[in-house]
Structures are given as structure tokens and as C-alpha cells.
């Protein structure tokens, strides 16, 4: 099994984070910003996994023929599972807030949603 160099994962993860950040910073549509946020979270999760990844080892699931020292670090994977759950919750929250916002403001343009200011 040929696995790309670990730095490729880092590169990918950081690219995802930056792409997400770009969307949050530049897109005017709230939904697009939220999508950016999700992409960013995915990037972070990927980064976490990559940190725990050891080239050429298998998933940390206790099964036949795999000794503990042949598996990758399980902790980051546990973390990522939690983080994904949290991410889903956040996304659900943000989207529902966006729905309410649209109901009240009639727009999703971020520049028009600024009743609270100053």
C-alpha cells in the first residue's frame, strides 16, 4: 500500500482550513460563510488525524493480527470523533439561526444583518 508522505496530509489539512477561512472572510452570504466554517472544521479534524498518523500502520481497532504497536495513535481519532459530533451540533445551530434570521430580516446578506451594533 503506497501512502503519500505525511506532509501531504498536513498540506491538505491546512489548505482546507485556509479555504474555509477564506469563505468566512470574503463571502457575503451567511450560508456560504457557514459552509466555510464547516470546511474549516473538517480541515482541523484532518490535521488532528494526521498528527496521530504513523506511516504504514493500521487503524486502531482491536482485531486479529494487529498488535497494539502496529496501530496508529488512537487518541487523536477519539478526539476527532468527539470533534465531529460537536461540529455537527454547531452546524445545526448555525443553520437554524440562519433560518430564523432569514425569517426576520428577509435577507442572508451579512452586510444587511447588523441591527445590533455600536
Amino acid at each position, binding site marked *: 500500500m503506497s501512502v503519500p508522505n505525511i506532509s501531504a496530509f498536513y498540506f491538505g489539512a491546512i489548505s482546507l482550513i485556509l479555504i474555509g477561512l477564506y469563505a468566512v*472572510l470574503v463571502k*457575503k452570504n451567511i450560508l456560504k*460563510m457557514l459552509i466555510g466554517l464547516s470546511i474549516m472544521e473538517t480541515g482541523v479534524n484532518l490535521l488532528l488525524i494526521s498528527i496521530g498518523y504513523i506511516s504504514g500502520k493500521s487503524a486502531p481497532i482491536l482485531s486479529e493480527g494487529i498488535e497494539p504497536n502496529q496501530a496508529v495513535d488512537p487518541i487523536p481519532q477519539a478526539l476527532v470523533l468527539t470533534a465531529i459530533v460537536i461540529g455537527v451540533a454547531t452546524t445545526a445551530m448555525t443553520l437554524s439561526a440562519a433560518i430564523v434570521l432569514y425569517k426576520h430580516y428577509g435577507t442572508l446578506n451579512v452586510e444587511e*444583518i*447588523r441591527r*445590533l*451594533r*455600536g
Partner: protein
Amino acid sequence: MNELMIMLFAPLVAGFIAWALDVRGIREAVGVLGTLVPLGVLAKYYSTIAGSNPEVVTQTITVGGFKLIFQLNTISWYFATIASLIGVAMAFGMVSTSRSSYEWLFALMSYTGVLGVFLSGDFVGFFLFWELMTFASFMMVLKRSRHESLKYFVLSVIGAYAMLIAIGILYAKIGALDFGTIRQALYMDAMLGSISKSLTALVFLLFLTAFGVKAGAVPLHVWAPGAYSEVDQSYTAFFSGALSKAGAYGFLLLYILMGAKLVAALGIWHNHMVFSYIIAWLGAITVVVAGFLAVLQEDIRKLFAYSSVSQVGYILLGLGIGTPLGFTGALFHVLSHAVFKGLFWLVVAALVLRTGKTRFEDFGGLAEKMPITFAMSLIAVLSLAGIPPMAGFASKWLIYEAAISAHMPLVAGAIFLGSALAFAYVVRFLYAVWFGQRPSDLEDVKEAPLPLLIGMAILAIPNIVFGVAPGLVTEYLGKFLGNPVGGNYYKLVTPTGTYNALLVAVLLVFGLAIAGLIFIYGAKTRRIPVTNTYQSGNPVTEDYNLSMRRNFYRPLAEALDFWLKYSWDRFYERLAGIAEDFADFLREGFYNGNVQSYAWYLAVVLLILALWGVL
């Protein structure tokens, strides 16, 4: 619990009781009682403090990890006693003038604050009571005027925070907060020089701001006229008579704690200590500027407010001379200003209470209606104008002598000018309010009520006693200043002059008696028409009608036109306006409501983290 604590907190507790009960009669009784306690305790300790071998009474308590030291020594006893005297007079005055438990609470709270400032032997207690006193007096002003109280509060808070930073710097450098250690450490450091010159100068500047605000030194005086006018006038007696002395006390403290270090750091210029010279000039400018402004006022409260500022300038000036003689004069003036200005404010309180008016043009001929009050105000006028044999003369004379013997002719000139101005405005007060034609609506004015008269008497007596026997004060002050003034109780002898108060008093009484005899037996009276007043050849027109009661000093105002264009008041107001606009700019610019810009802030911080080498 020792007596110092009782004395310190009796007024505060009394104030709370008066406030909480709020029953007419009990409120006043508790209040007066509360102010009498400190005076009693101080009297009890007189023999300990001023006896042949003086002791220092000390009490230490621990609050919140700080050790608060309270001590009664020669200086603090002196200041505390003056404050208590005024406090008692204030309480009697308030019995007549104040109907509000709110005012009792905060008047007495500020009394505790003032006592605490004088008794504190460390900077935490000093700062605490300083704030308490400021806060309480601010609440007094707040009740009457929003604008004036805000001005007072902002300046006071700036002063207090300046002091806090100075305290912090000293604490950071020395690691202690009590006066004894700081004094010793700074004395040592004057030779070692481990605290840099610029830092010392900064600390000096900060303390100067802090104490200057409270003492009302120009250009930090702008709060004083409004604040002194816009409170119960009985309280102003305390406000101007005792509370502003906290500033003077602060300056004295500056000498005691930092004197050596300041001389070492800021140097000597033409035989004058530079820092001291700055204080002296601050005082001189205050005396003259506030004196001129006082002359031009048409409202008696404003007049005495500016006059207070001007007179406290004398104290700063005396301290700034920096010789033992100067200190004696300044500290004596603390006493005499307290008693005569306190008396003045009680007189004003009586006038406001009985007539409800404050402007010169509404007064006239009240001497017949309020004879005792008139007599009291005569004493105050004589004392303030510096006419022997009143306390005011003795102290001013000492400051004058000190300035001459310290070779400060310009400063001495300021004293002289200030005295002349003081004379100008008190004469007007004397004539316009008490003599001349009485407006018809003042026909049924009654004499001031008894408690107010008691309050006045409490302050009038020291004016005369310490005027006739100024040696009582100079001898007491000589204990820690090394007896710069010779003579006995009735006679002051300085290197450059002698003043025999008793002789002057006797001569004065004698002269007055002769004048009285002549008046009774030999005087011819002549009726003068009302219109025949002060025209001096000017044609009288509707808009240029100067009389003792209206625009009397308008020619002076016209002469000073150029200078009056500039006003510190307006300057500060503009500054405040700029600050508010800046606040709006910041608020609307930063919290602009757009979440995307908020996200950008986060991104920028990340970028800064990266650029700054943290990332």
C-alpha cells in the same frame, strides 16, 4: 478597638444612623454628636501630642492583606483638629440648613474621609480615605447639579488615579506602602540614585496632579467654583475649609516623604529647590488668577469659591518657599483659612437660608436685620483681608516674611497682589450685602437660626484668639519645624520683622473707641440721594450703570478682556468633547455590526501572531 478607630468612624456611623432613621430631630442630634466625637478624642490626646515629650499614637489594622496604619502625630493632630473644628461648625450649620438625610450621610462620610486622610500612615489607607472623601463630597454636589458634579468628579478621579499610579511606582521600587519605610528608602535613594531622575520626576508630576486637583491649584481649579456653589452652603464650609486642605496636606506629605529625593533628582536652581519652586509658583499663579476671577463675580457663592481657591494658593505658596518659616506660615494659613472661610460659608448659608438669594444685586442693608450674622461676617472679612489682629493677618504676614527672607520677591509680589484683590472683593461683599439701600422684598428677613449662629461662633472665636495670640500656633508648629518663629504668645519675631499682635489689638480697640466717641459726639450726618454713588464722571446709562451691587468691577473686567478670553473651563470641555467623539468613533468603527469584519479581526490577530514570531 482603640480611640483612633472610634474617632475615625464615629462620623460615618453617625451618618448611616442619621440616614437610616431619617427622623427629624434625631437625625440632627446624631449628626452633631457624630462630629463632636473626633473633636473630643483629639482634645484628649492633646497632652500626649503637644506635651513635653510628645508621643505618636499608632493603631494598625489589617484589611484585605494590607496593613493600614493610623497615627496621631504632631502634624496629623493639627490637621485633624482643624478639620474637626470645621466639622462641628458644619454640623451645627446643617441643623439649620439641611433637611435631607442624604446630605447628612454624605457630609459625615466625607468628614470620616478627611480624618482618615490626615491620620493615615500608609498609602493604602491614604488612598482609600482620599477616595471616600472625594466620593462623598461628589455625592453632595450631585444632588444639586449634574454638570458641576461631573466636572468635579472627573477631575478628582483623574487626580486620584494619578496618585494611584504614583503609589504603584513607589511600591514597585520600594516594596512598601507605609510612610515610614518609603521615607527612609527615598532618603537613602537620594544618595544612591537607583530610582532614575525621570521616574522621580514622573512620580512628582503625578502627585502634583493629584494634590493639585484637590487643593484647586490653577489650572486644575475649574471644578471648585461650581462644586462649592452647588451644595448645601453649610457643607461648603467643610468642603472648602477642611476638604481642600487634604490637598495642602498632600503637598506637605510630598516634602516629608520625597523631599530629599526630589532635591537630588530635580536639582537646585539659583538657590531654590526646583520642585519646591514649582510648587511656589503654582501657588502664586493660583493666588493671582483666582483672586482676579473672584473680584469679577456677581454671585456671592462664586466669589467665595474663587476666593477659596485663591487662599489655598497661599498655602501652596508658603509650602513652596520650602523654609521652616514658610512651612509655619503655610500651616498657620491652613488654620486661619479654615476658620475664616468656614465662617464665610456659614454666613453665606445664613443669607441663602433667610433670603434665598445669592447675587449681589439682590442684597443690601441687611446689617440691621441680621446683626449677629453681620458681626460674624465682619470678623471673617477682616481676617480674610488680612487685617490685624485677626488670624488671617498673622498667617499671611508669616508667608510674606518667609518669601522675603527666602529671596523670592516675585512670589512675595503675588502675595501682595492677592491681598489687594482679596480686599477688593470682601469690601464689596461687606458693603453690597450689609449696607446701603435694602430691597423691598428683604424687609422681613430674620436673624439666622440659633444652631447656625452657634456654628459661626465656633469659627469666629479662633479667628480672634489666634489673631491676638498667634504665638499659640507658631509655638505648636515650632515643635516639628525647629522654632523658626521667636517671640511669645502675643508677639511673633522672624529674622526680618516683628509683629506684636496684642499691641496692635489694643491699639485697634483703642482707636475704634476714639472713633466711636467722635462719631457719637461729634459727627454731623448728611443725607445723600440714592443716585449719588459711584459714577466718577462717567455718564450713567442703562447699560453702563455700575454700582456696588451691580457690575462694580466691570472696568477691571474690561481691562482684563484679553486674558479672560482664555478659559481653562472651555479648554477642558473641548477636551471632554473630543474624548466623547473619539468614543463614538471607536464604538461605531469597531463594533460595526458586521460579523464578517469581526471575523477579519480574528484573522488579523492570527496574522499578527504569525508576523510577531509567535507563530
